[in-house]
């Protein structure tokens, strides 16, 4: 993907792609949650991504001493430290001297607080700004005054061409206020955590305010040391009829993989760990033969998406492929991999789509799994469908 000057990368290629190259610059982003969450980690990752591209970033920190903040930034690995400008709002609270160029002398004076941030914005003209975080002000000052200053900050950030991120946990405001704040933002990223039967899941909801309406994506994610936020699909099922090439697909996509196979056929499952394009996924390859269907049923639960592998030279097996898809359940995103597409008798993707009775919108991607051809594209198409955005 070529870098565009009016976009800033989120640091997660697959999310950039979904956004058409990153966040629009300038723009306003709200990192929102009802409870404490990993907003800050995502914000730090976002800042680091800019610093590593040689951009200047401004970080307004109400909670951590600058030394501590810098140390925590370093946990992502090295970055050009002089490009990170910190507005120090803690040293005065802790009665400590500050080494930072921009410091807030008193957090009890809202006008002063906002003035320092504005000055830092105008002088350093950062491409990315993070305010960590707005509930610090919302909890201390009159709501109307906070909202007025909030809008002013957005104005100044627009003037200097920044992407400005506000972290915000809503402790105090009512629903109407939250809607107003969301309305002031071009993007709202809401962090949610849920638990189901002993498994914890993180999801962020990415909403884009556009002239023609709201566009929403649900992005499951995880955090990795030194990498930061990674889109995470906990289970992609790789399935399809006997001898279609499922195990080869798992191997071709995975960094590490394990296969339980005997006499050249999978008798239990294939497992592979994918780490591509800012995306991590666990692939679970099922056996294709009907006698192993009970194994299929064990794993066909909470499936993020399906890579349905078919042998392009075997029209007779497409019915079975359809049936296997039915076993996973309705509504699970899927992509068809028309494998062995290099063989002379291979059917065209359109023909496979027609024989399987699939909608035009279902991608049928020609692949040669043994040579790794087409498999990444298929996974990327699947990721796009899972992340959605309509």
């Amino acid at each position: 993907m070529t870098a565009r000057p009016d976009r800033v990368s989120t640091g997660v290629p697959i999310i950039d792609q979904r956004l058409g190259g990153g966040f629009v610059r300038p723009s306003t982003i709200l990192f929102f949650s009802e409870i404490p969450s990993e907003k800050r980690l995502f914000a730090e990752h976002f800042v680091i991504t800019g610093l590593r591209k040689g951009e200047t970033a401004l970080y307004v920190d109400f909670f951590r001493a600058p030394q501590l903040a810098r140390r925590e930034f370093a946990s992502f690995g090295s970055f050009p430290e002089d490009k990170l400008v910190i507005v120090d709002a803690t040293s005065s609270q802790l009665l400590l001297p500050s080494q930072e160029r921009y410091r807030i002398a008193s957090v009890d004076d809202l006008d002063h607080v906002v003035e320092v941030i504005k000055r830092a914005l105008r002088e350093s003209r950062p491409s990315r700004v993070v305010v960590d975080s707005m509930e610090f002000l919302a909890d201390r000052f009159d709501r109307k005054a906070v909202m007025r200053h909030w809008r002013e900050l957005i104005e100044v950030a627009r003037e200097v061409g920044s992407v400005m991120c506000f972290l915000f946990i809503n402790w105090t405001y009512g629903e109407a206020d939250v809607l107003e704040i969301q309305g002031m933002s071009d993007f709202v990223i809401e962090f949610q955590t849920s638990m189901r039967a002993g498994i914890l899941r993180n999801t962020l909801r990415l909403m884009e305010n556009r002239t023609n309406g709201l566009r929403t994506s649900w992005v499951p994610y995880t955090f990795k040391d030194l990498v930061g936020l990674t889109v995470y699909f906990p289970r992609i099922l790789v399935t399809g009829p006997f001898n279609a090439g499922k195990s080869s697909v798992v191997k071709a996509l995975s960094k590490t993989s394990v296969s339980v196979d005997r006499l050249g056929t999978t008798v239990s499952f294939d497992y592979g760990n994918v780490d591509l394009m800012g995306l991590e996924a666990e692939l679970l390859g099922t056996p294709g033969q009907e006698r192993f269907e009970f194994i299929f049923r064990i794993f066909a639960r909470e499936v993020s998406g399906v890579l349905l592998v078919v042998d392009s030279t075997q029209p007779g097996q497409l019915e079975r492929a359809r049936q296997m898809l039915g076993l996973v359940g309705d509504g699970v995103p899927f992509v068809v991999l028309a494998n062995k597409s290099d063989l002379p008798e291979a059917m065209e993707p359109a023909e496979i789509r027609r024989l399987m009775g699939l909608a035009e919108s279902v991608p049928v991607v020609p692949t040669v799994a043994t040579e790794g051809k087409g498999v990444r594209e298929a996974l990327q198409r699947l990721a796009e469908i899972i992340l959605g955005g309509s």
Partner: protein
Amino acid sequence: MADVWTELDEVIASLSSVSDIQAVAIVRRDGLVITHNLPSAVEPKIVAAMTAAIVGTSEMATVQLGQGRFMQALIDGEHGKLVSTGAGDEALLVALAYRDANLGLILMALERAAHRIDQILSRTVSAR
């Protein structure tokens, strides 16, 4: 929510204090990791998927062969044993044991732990 893991980790800790047990994993029946104290050389995600397949297959075999309810799967290796059992509707429990381990003792400890895991997890399911 966090105290669920604290409680599950306590179950793992008490199992690991049984001297014949080397490591333990609690996984879900569909092969996802809930928590574990496996050695770092072992990939827990693969162990979880394997355990799901082992127990799933064993349960099928037990039923198909008319042997009543599935109790546990015992796997004997040259250097050690692997014992897998159900822990309620959602979870499975797998223990790595030393080669000359006292199986009776291990099975007793596992049964007690499985019961406890079931209690912890079903509480969180209903509290959701």
